[in-house]
């Protein structure tokens, strides 16, 4: 899989084809062009929905960031259902979603975004849950924080614990951070798959205490 990217510099727009493959065939390029066309079409579609739902202004001000990213996530999920991205090139896909829509991202990120902080990837993961549940946990900023930790993605039981905790005891992102960090640190060297529900719950409850 090859990803077509556009870079803007002094010479104007430059097109590059990126992939983990060193050798690109004309067929690869053709496929990358086609994929790029589909992706841009999808982004345009997302922009239309966001404006229609009035969750974003024409200038790109997000009135309801959680819903904005939820809608984006839903669309990416559907897009990836039909367009397969190979794992080796996944990072390129996520990286180069930035810069495709000035409505979604008013400016380009100045530095490289790590894969755990990529807004589109987070939105993709978030949209796998019902909006109502997501809202009851907290705002977009909090979700960005939660889904930035691998342990919550690796073991759904831990994520469910966090969701329940944050519904029971709502916290802002900054206030939730020490709690999330303590869970992450606790599981840094643990493979939770060998723990049964009771054992896992004992560890999690201790963290809460």
């Amino acid at each position, binding site marked *: 899989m090859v990803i077509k990217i556009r870079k803007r510099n002094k010479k104007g727009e430059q097109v590059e084809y990126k992939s983990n493959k*060193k*050798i690109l*065939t*004309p067929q690869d390029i053709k*496929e990358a062009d086609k994929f790029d066309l589909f992706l841009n079409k999808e982004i345009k579609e997302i922009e239309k929905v966001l404006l229609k739902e009035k969750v974003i202004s024409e200038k790109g001000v997000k009135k309801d960031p959680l819903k904005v990213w939820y809608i984006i996530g839903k669309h990416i999920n559907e897009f990836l259902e039909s367009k397969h991205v190979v794992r*080796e090139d996944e990072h390129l896909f996520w990286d180069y979603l930035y810069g495709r829509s000035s409505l979604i991202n008013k400016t380009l990120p100045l530095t490289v975004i790590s894969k755990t902080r990529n807004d589109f990837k987070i939105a993709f993961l978030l949209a*796998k*849950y019902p909006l109502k549940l997501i809202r009851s946990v907290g705002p977009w900023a909090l979700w960005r924080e939660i889904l930035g930790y691998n342990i919550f993605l690796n073991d759904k039981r831990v994520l469910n614990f966090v969701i329940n905790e944050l519904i029971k005891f709502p916290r802002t992102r900054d206030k939730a951070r020490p709690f999330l960090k303590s869970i992450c640190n606790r599981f840094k060297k*643990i493979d939770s798959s*060998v723990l049964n529900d009771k054992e896992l719950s004992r560890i999690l409850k201790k963290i809460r205490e």
Partner: protein
Amino acid sequence: MGIIFRQIRNDANDIKAIADGYRTKIGHPLWLADGLQKDAIQNSWDARVDKKHGKGWECGFSLLDIGGEEILCIEDWGTTGLNGAKFYTEEELSKILNKNKSGEDLAYFLNSNWSAKSSEEGGNRGRGKTLFLIASKEKRIFFDSLRSTDDTYICGELYLDNDKQIKFKLSYDQDAQKIFAGLTKNKISILDHYGTRIFIVNPESTIIDAIKNGEIVSFINYCRWETIKKHQAKIFIKNGDGKRYAVLPKWYEDKTDFLSKEFPLEKIKENTSYRIKKLVLRYAPNSDVPEIIKGISIQRGLMSIQCLRADELVHEEGMNDIYGWVEMDEVLEKDMKNMCEGPEHFDFAWTAKPAKYLKDYIRIKIREFAKELKIIESEEARKNKIQKTAEENALKSLSPFFKKLGLIGKHKGTHPKKPHKRKGDEPLRLSISDIIFPEGDSRRVDYGEKIVNTYVVPINELSDSVLVLVRVFIVSDEGKTEVIEEKEINLRPGRGSKIGTDEIIINSNFNKGGYSLRGRMISLEKKNWKLSDGTSIEKGTILYDRINQKFYVEVDPPESGPFRFQPEKKENKEKLFRWEPEGDNGYVIFYNELHPLIKIILDDVEKLDDYLTEQGALIALQIRLEELITEEEDRKDIDFIKLINSEDVSNVWPVFLKKYSEFMWDLKEQNGNKNKKKE
């Protein structure tokens, strides 16, 4: 004569065996959700009132919270409910089952391995209902049903008891209403239409996940598309805030942009009465056909049972892009079901008749279709393949030369590459030192080859033993994980026994691409000593995680060299080769396809490979010289140091020629040895 006993079965083990059957046949992590949807929908569809069109039929899966208890409810409309004779004692039940009469839905629903379904219906092995129990963490379900034949309301509970026996409770009418109210804590009203509701108590987390993230809808879409297409069947998933209906995937719509061919009613084998109703083949290049539908779907009873991969039937380029489906006529469908279909309804025994006839027929038709469309070895595809292979081979040949010259790509920037330094041995560790790849140093493995000694040996250099779980698994680059072996052992000081397998045979179950063979050791107990990095040891602590052997199936390992070749078309006579730096990734060497020197060898892999290798070596020398002129600290090669210090242009060509000559000599000698070995 002795006393006659009834055998006491271990139903818990039977449940496990049936679950294992589904897991193996379905073969993906969400097997339970996939199997459950298939069986539940099929049972409901078989019970529809309007047998011809399924009018008014609907089936839904809803995730409920009843007083803090998570429950999956499977409900249907437009069905008959659990009709059949009522029974009040085991003797009555036994008589009903042994008569093997159709229409005894109630008795059959409550008893495993009993079924009196006709061949037109979906299931007939009586396993589907066991899957409901498998789906419950507690192995408990309850149900209610309103029967169309006598308006009787029934409610029952089916569960695995402590004595490992599956038991059920059943009540009718007012008693049933009371029991239902108790089971649902008065939160759900009794059924008000003919049909059945099945409540799976505390469903397995993979099912909940599949419902929450919508994957179950994809399974339904791809399994039930024919029912949806022909009968506008309504199947939904409800999770809290919204209902999502299964839809007809675009791949199966009649209107399609893809090249398509329909083979009408036809005998699949002479001197038999087996016929297909219709075979549809479609060619969808560059369209990322979902993995789940790749190949030809074998449709039976309006559902997809299995997809036969076109690339496994016809070994030619482009077959991966062919998909389609086959609908069978009555006789073929009946025999395929009764004689060849697996009890889980996910596969066929392709060596049995008439499955073999069908497979052969599909193979012939795919080849016919591919030839018509000129998919098989089109001129363009052939040319691309030749060029690509030649470019890859040239880079492989040049790789030692790049290394010798110190060309490792640019990779300079602010983060210089650190040389790899192996960490010291841990006292608790896994060793995979016996592993052997078929091509020695190369990590490429082709179909039919095997990797041997794919096991790990646990080592304990401490004085204390420790209870551990050792897991040997393969992770594909696409993110799929498959456990080869997982073993709990009490690891005593010294070396433990092998865990893993003696060999991994690479067959078509492996998709082309990269894989990692990994090993992990996890503690299963608390210890009062610590790991070398200070980590305390408790149940779950990862003791060792450093086994990672990468291999590549049917593809070369990604080139990590500093160059890649790219063809271009230039009318300019001055352009034979040119090169451009490519960010931090190295250089692209463009070769002009229109230049007569190249044009003439474009359809010859070996000649093009040789030419690109020779010219690539000279270009590499030029690039390295340019780099060294600007990067003083990198100058290590004595010839280059002398050349740069001399500041004499006339010295350039002799140095280049010397290095080029040495490289080509070694290369040709090496290739000669390889050829001798082959002979």
